[in-house]
């Protein structure tokens, strides 16, 4: 697997290449790409949600804790979901509405970890005329340890 190219921020680009609700096959793996989590990416994420805990910024402090060094906040999977999937992934379809998510945390991700993702649609259904897809995801660090696992419910664009 190759590292991701420069991230395409225009989600309209090649939108027609992405799977629509009808194309999504529950159980079928999604394409994923490894991503090296940088300290800068962790710090930018922290800034966006106002995280100030020194475990994420202060290496000298972090070394004195049970974690033994800098870690990322548990919710860093919010970034990893997009950094570990390619531009044609259906999660980027404009109008995708996030209805809710649940995540379990095993060990923290850390700066310089090479993160990989195993992901798939788990289920799809129609409720009150809305098209839902349930997605299922597990992130691993470079040693193959589970970082976190989670499930999300999205309403697909029509």
């Amino acid at each position, binding site marked *: 697997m190759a590292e991701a190219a420069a991230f395409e921020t225009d989600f309209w680009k090649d939108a027609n290449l992405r799977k629509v609700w009808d194309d999504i096959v529950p159980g079928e793996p999604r394409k994923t790409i490894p991503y090296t989590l940088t300290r800068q990416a962790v710090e930018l994420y922290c800034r966006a*949600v*106002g995280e100030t805990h020194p475990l994420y910024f202060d290496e000298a402090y972090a070394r004195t804790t*049970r974690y033994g060094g800098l870690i990322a906040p548990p*919710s860093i999977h*919010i970034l990893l979901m997009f950094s570990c999937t390619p531009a044609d992934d259906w999660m*980027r379809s404009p109008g995708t509405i996030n209805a809710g998510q649940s*995540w379990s945390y095993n060990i923290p991700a850390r700066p310089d970890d090479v993160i990989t993702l195993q992901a798939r649609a788990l289920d799809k259904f129609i409720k009150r005329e809305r098209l839902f897809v349930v997605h299922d995801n597990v992130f691993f660090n470079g040693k193959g340890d589970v970082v976190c696992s989670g499930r999300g419910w999205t309403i697909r664009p029509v």
Partner: protein
Amino acid sequence: MTNVFENLNAGDGIEGPQFAVTRESIRLFCDASLDYNPLHLDDEFMKGSFGQTQFGGVIMHGMNNFGLISRMITDWAYPRDAVHRRLETRWVKPVQPGDTIRPSGIIRSKQETAKSRWVLIDVVVRNQHDERVATGEAMVEFPKAISP
């Protein structure tokens, strides 16, 4: 720290940080999460209809709520030698620029298992009108033996 778990009670409250939502905060979250869905950026797009739903303008990422709740949980757990183990959320109402939101939590129950101890927390995010915009449940572990 050994008495921390024992001293927690159902009904104990946890207060999270207030967060002012602006176009800039939403744009920063786009850059930090790499989620550039036009729902969060494109006013023209948001004039449209989304199936059964109309928003009337750009909306904050639902996962921004998630990040704020997670921040509240970790800020509460770290000084207690506890570990944030799970968070489940549902989005109840869209959040838009100009809103001010704040997460909070209430301990629902405690439970001991064969090898550890757990606190279950009901979480909610409310806007400036005291309306619920997100709800959920969190699970925090108080390990008997210290490990990440």
